[in-house]
């Protein structure tokens, strides 16, 4: 672990400039006061109800995502480079989606094999030839990044369907502001609190032609038992829009309308936090209770904006991921600013052979998996795990990709013994509107609280940190 890059101490143990203000403050603090503050943070989270539900357990069980009080800090210049890379990547993703559902030039040019699309479950034939209002496919994107050294960020995953976590980004900041106001007068931290207002403006800007001058926006949630319900309610509340469920909605006169106390009222933009498959029982999964029968027909005739557009999953699939460098170059004509993590596609025989030979050094992921489930971390796996995965790989090679285990950067957490390094990742949030792309400075930092662990998922013992981008 000694070769890991620590974002506070670098490789040589000298405090990096972005952390100096924090460091000075921290050394002057009484650890007992900080421990009390850490508990206070937990109290605030519990009372405000910033919790997530755990699937498959007692419905009443709501858990807190542990919050660590040490911020993750980036300098303005470090961030600007990152933001440019993110913007470029998101631009490419939207161009790719537009192309894939229309002329498919990238396939014709032979830059991506045909079957990557033809055999992709996330590709929605319903979207062929449909142009979303304003031409925007992914209104909200979360790009997962990891850092391996000074300024060396790699994209781990693109989240172009219904990314989550922005409420934690906002509440983490709010909590830090409440607990340590003095830190913010010493450090000039770029604000994130206008995210909900920007989100609303951004969604309204993508309203369909049918909308009036002040488009009606609503958030669609699967309901209070969904693991991210808190976030759905939070965003609707902060945007000042209605939070609806499928059974509040109905198609009337070619519009999607919500049942109000005074009758049905049409919605212009639906920010849905329901997966494609459940969106419309008439067009997709007929068993779905979460969607709106017929919404896809309204969508195709321009009666509503669905954010993100159905079918965007085709761009954030882990197999497509390995082609992202080509995709960025193809659509932007530029060299990608952000690097991918080298990826072996197990569908290719040579790659599969390599992966099987080096399984103990690699991370293997399911192409469609998420949440850190169904993956193998080679160096941490037992012989039994390795054997089991070897069988799975041979049975369904196309279902997997493999990547080298990266030496992820660490950021200190406030542990019992004081500051202790833990691995982190970063999910910045991106808003796309017809006239531009905006990246919120910072994002959500997830941290693996267990010493040495690389798994940052909240479902598996991860926590979060406030993320600062300094004004240079």
């Amino acid at each position, binding site marked *: 672990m000694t070769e890991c890059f620590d974002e506070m101490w670098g490789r040589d143990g000298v405090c990096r400039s972005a952390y100096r203000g924090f460091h000075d403050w921290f050394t002057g603090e009484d650890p007992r006061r900080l421990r009390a503050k850490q508990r206070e943070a937990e109290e605030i989270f519990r009372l405000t109800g910033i919790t997530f539900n755990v699937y498959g357990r007692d419905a009443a069980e709501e858990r807190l995502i542990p919050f660590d009080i040490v911020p993750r800090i980036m300098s303005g210049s470090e961030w600007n480079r990152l933001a440019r890379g993110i913007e470029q990547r998101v631009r490419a993703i939207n161009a790719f989606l537009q192309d894939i559902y229309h002329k498919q030039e990238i396939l014709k040019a032979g830059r991506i094999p045909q079957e990557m699309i033809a055999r992709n479950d996330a590709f929605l034939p319903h979207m062929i030839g449909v142009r979303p209002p304003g031409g925007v496919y992914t209104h909200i994107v979360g790009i997962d990044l990891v850092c391996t050294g000074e300024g060396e960020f790699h994209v781990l995953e693109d989240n172009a369907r219904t990314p989550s976590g922005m409420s934690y980004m906002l509440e983490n900041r709010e909590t830090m502001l409440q607990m340590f106001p003095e830190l913010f007068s010493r450090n000039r931290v770029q604000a994130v609190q206008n995210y909900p207002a920007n989100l609303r403006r951004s969604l309204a800007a993508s309203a369909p032609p049918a909308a009036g001058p002040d488009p009606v926006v609503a958030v669609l949630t699967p309901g*209070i038992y969904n693991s991210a319900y808190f976030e759905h*309610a939070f965003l609707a509340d902060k945007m000042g*829009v209605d*939070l609806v*469920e499928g059974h509040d909605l109905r198609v009337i006169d070619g519009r999607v309308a919500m049942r109000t106390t005074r009758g049905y009222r049409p919605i212009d933009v639906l920010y849905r936090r329901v997966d494609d498959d459940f969106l419309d029982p008439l067009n997709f999964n007929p068993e779905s209770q979460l969607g709106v029968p017929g919404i896809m027909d309204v969508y195709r005739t321009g009666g509503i904006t669905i954010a993100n557009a159905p079918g965007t999953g085709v761009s954030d699939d882990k197999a497509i991921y390995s082609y992202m460098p080509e995709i960025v170059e193809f659509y932007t004509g530029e060299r990608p600013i952000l690097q991918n993590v080298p990826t072996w596609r197990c569908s290719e025989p040579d790659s599969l052979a390599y992966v099987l030979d080096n399984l103990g050094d690699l991370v293997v992921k399911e192409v469609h998996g998420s949440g850190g489930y169904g993956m193998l971390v080679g160096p941490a796996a037992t012989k039994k795990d390795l054997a089991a995965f070897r069988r799975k790989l041979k049975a369904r090679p196309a279902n997997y990709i493999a990547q080298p285990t990266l030496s992820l950067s660490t950021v200190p957490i406030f542990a019992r013994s004081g500051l202790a390094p833990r691995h982190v990742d970063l999910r910045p949030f991106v808003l796309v509107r017809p006239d531009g792309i905006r990246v919120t400075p910072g994002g959500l930092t997830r941290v693996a609280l267990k010493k040495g662990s690389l798994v940052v998922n909240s479902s598996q013992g991860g926590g979060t940190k406030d993320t600062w981008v300094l004004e240079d």
Partner: protein
Amino acid sequence: MLGKTANGLFWMYRSLERAEHTARLIETGQRLALTRLNDPDAEWRPVLQSASVLQAYLANNETVTREAVIDWLLRSRDNPGSVLGCIEQARMNARMVRTALTGDVWEAVNAAYMQARQMLARKVSERDLPEVLRALRQQTSLVRGMTQGSMMRDEIYEFARLGTYIERADNTARILDVKYYVLLPSTLAVGSSIDNVQWEGVLRSLSAEGGFRMHYGSSPAPREITHFLMLDKRMPRSLAFCTDKIRENLTYLNRGYRQPSESLRLVCHIEQQYLSHDVDRIFEYGLHEMMVELLGAFASLAHQIETEYRFHE
């Protein structure tokens, strides 16, 4: 505003009102039991009746004892109308309508939930009972206070109030329905005072002893108590007070609607039919009969509100 949201608000506040009412019934029951040395368990059956859970209780318990009744009313998982059940319901509804509530109200109801779950995790001992009941009432009062102090006076507020007052009217009518015999003038010789402990119990379970003494003196007669609980608009748990508020809420909601509200018509009818006569007429009609009819009328009113404001599909 969404019909679902109106529904959630209505039931959130109904549940809170009911939680508070049940806590108060337990308090009164305990007090009556303590003063009835020969048969301390006799008082718990009417308490169950007033909370309208007697049948469910008997289906789950063989005998009516203090300990079992209190546990049933406070926290039994088999009783969805227990104080804990009501507070959980209220909080679930609050989560559902989170966007309609201020942060203050949400935090108050969430705090009530967290405290109730903690205090009622185990059987409450007789010694801890007064403190637990006090804390429960304080928590629900805090939600009410935050509601009054932080919410906009708009549609959202009106549905919250409707839930509160309909539940409250129902609770008061139920107590009168169960304890009507305490107030029957016919069973007593004119001028004799009724069972002090009993009428005190009725007033106490409506937090109304002080108010009554202040305005009616300290030697109560059945007519006066009946008047107080049914017709006195100064008394915040009287039927007249509650229906008055319900009418105001519905009038507000009906503003701007083209068609006249059927719910509003119903509440006006309740007022005219039952609450605009003097006490003698009520006794002539039969206090018990009237309560049975009133309980039915409040139930129809609640149903009409649900339909009219599209609570459900």
